[in-house]
């Protein structure tokens, strides 16, 4: 049997869904459901995925999807899991799926509550770095220097991208990890590990968005890889908030940031000064990360 055929049997996403060509979020959920299915229930908050999932009675996934209001995902997921437990169905994996807006911004309070209570759910943030469902507006996950429709030229996103992983680590949750669709094996391994752990788990997936980022549809996987290779989106995992470990290491051989930025129109008018500022920000974060990780776990 070919690997592809094996995967086809595990596939939970159904072709004909509503994502744009090259949507990183669609690919991320494809890998996610394949890794965690079939006994899976997804709580889905307002986001591009509300549309990708299709309009009932149609659906894009073979598992149940429970839509919920934008700020509520962490709490609806908590309730669903405990409700399933009360009804003798506690073996079902409950995944909360939210965009960066539903995670970093409007959903942060419910997310923090669920993490603090150590609810037995997997919260997956697919991060396309803006409010895409509503047409590419700035979120607190938008990187410094990017243009959005609420920061059009000559404006740009000011301030740093919020470090959601640090926030989650500070909750001391059993497991948190970053992932991208360019490293599907790494992503699958992290999801499976997450599934084997009880308590609150958080997965942060960078999800290129061709129309929002102004990138080529065919470039999504490549961009995801460049994000890792430039240190823009490092791959790592955190156990219990304290045990940090790189899962893909570039160290000093990080590619120059321009390799990543140049392929996206959202960074097009970024001048040299801002690129330097962004590089400095990433260097700071890299330094922070390396300190957290320690020499032994730089993989």
């Amino acid at each position, binding site marked *: 049997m070919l690997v592809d055929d094996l995967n086809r049997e595990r596939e939970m996403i159904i072709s004909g869904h509503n994502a744009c060509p090259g949507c990183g979020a669609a690919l991320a959920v494809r890998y996610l459901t394949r890794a965690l299915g079939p006994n*899976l*229930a997804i709580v889905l908050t307002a986001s591009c995925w509300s549309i990708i999932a299709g*309009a009932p009675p*149609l659906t894009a996934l073979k*598992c149940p999807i429970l839509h919920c209001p934008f700020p*509520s995902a962490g709490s609806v997921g908590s*309730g669903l899991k405990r409700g399933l437990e*009360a009804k003798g169905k506690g073996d079902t994996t409950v995944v909360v799926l939210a965009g960066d807006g539903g995670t970093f911004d409007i959903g942060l309070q419910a997310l923090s509550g669920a993490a603090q209570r150590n609810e037995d759910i997997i919260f997956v943030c697919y991060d396309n770095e803006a409010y895409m469902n509503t047409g590419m507006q700035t979120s607190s996950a938008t990187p410094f220097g990017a243009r959005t429709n609420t920061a059009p030229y000559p404006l740009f996103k000011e301030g740093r991208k919020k470090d959601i992983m640090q926030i989650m680590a500070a909750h001391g949750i059993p497991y948190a990890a970053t992932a991208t669709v360019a490293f599907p094996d790494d992503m699958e391994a992290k999801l499976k590990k997450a599934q084997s752990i009880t308590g609150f788990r958080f997965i942060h997936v960078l999800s290129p968005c061709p129309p929002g980022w102004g990138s080529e549809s065919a470039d999504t996987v490549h961009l995801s890889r460049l994000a890792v290779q430039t240190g823009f989106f490092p791959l790592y995992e955190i156990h219990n908030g304290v045990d940090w470990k790189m899962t893909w290491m570039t160290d000093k051989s990080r590619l120059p940031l321009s390799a990543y930025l140049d392929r996206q129109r959202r960074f097009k008018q970024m001048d040299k000064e801002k690129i330097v500022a962004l590089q400095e920000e990433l260097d700071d974060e890299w330094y922070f990360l390396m300190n957290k990780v320690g020499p032994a776990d730089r993989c």
Partner: protein
Amino acid sequence: MMAFEVINGSQAAAIAVQRAGIDLVAAYPITPQTVIVETLADFAAKGELGGEFVSLESEYSALSFCNGASAAGARVFTATASHGLAYMHEMIHWCSGARFPIVMANVNRAIGAPWCLDPDQGDSLSQRDTGWLQIYCSGAQEVFDTILQAFALSEELLLPCMVVFDGFYISHTYEAVDIPEIQDVGKFIGPPSFGAQVIPGEPGNLHGMASAENQQRLVRSRHEAMLRAPALYEEINGRYERLFGRKYGAIDAVMPPGARTAILTAGATAETVRWCLPDLEQTGLIQLRMFRPFPAKQLCAVLETYDIEKVLVVDRNCSIGAGGIFAQELKSALYGLARPPAVHDLILAGGVDLTGALIKNALSKMPLENRSTELWGVE
């Protein structure tokens, strides 16, 4: 077996929830609701709740949690008041649209600014268009009975139900309450049978995007389900009476012989009026219990049967720019009656206390030639 206990309205609510065979309680504190969640927490601490007690980080999350648990087919309860209810607003709509039979107690309290703790009903009344059943109670016994009945009503209609009572006057006031044993309550309400929406292993795109046409179909089906509530409520109360000897209606009227004036009100003020009736001349009480759906037919029938000439509505609320809300709703229910009564409104917005003197004063300011008077509790 029944036992009388001297308890307040909040404890009555909590005991009813415990007796109802609850799966999950989601809690967030706010005055004057705190005694409800603390009593439920006590049950949980003693291992007597029968379900799980979960403290959330906000009211919005408490109701969101109920939403998720209800999707799994669990029986859930939460309670709030005032700012907490307002903060839930988005989820209040969503729970009804998604047909989750959640029961929530709301303890009336004014909404700021400024901060105020008194029992203005504007918190629950400003949720009147969200598709929740709303039942107002005038005492602790009623709170106990109504919460049990609310689960039955809500789960049958697949509509959430808000059980409403006044802060302090009911939530913190003690009275003797007749509490049936848990096994007897089990004869009235068994384990939840409304079924889960989320069924692991089966695909389902629950509450995803709908067209305007489909949205209308869903709104209409909720509307029609809600209109079934008064008849179903009567049936439920019939069963309740056979088991426990008490029953309530969507409205409950007390009309002394010859009464041509009626005082219409909801909540604790109804109890005040009941006590004052012997002192009032030819005046009766119509206690509005069910507010959503609005029991227009039942109201008109009572007004016509007793040939009521004047109604004094006691509204512990005010829709600013329109007036007392119960009076507004009554007036619209009267549309089309051949000889509608005059409707006068005593507004106690802010949560002002109703006294016998206030009632008498209001009744004296309603000359027959006036069709409508607006009176305020505070000069």
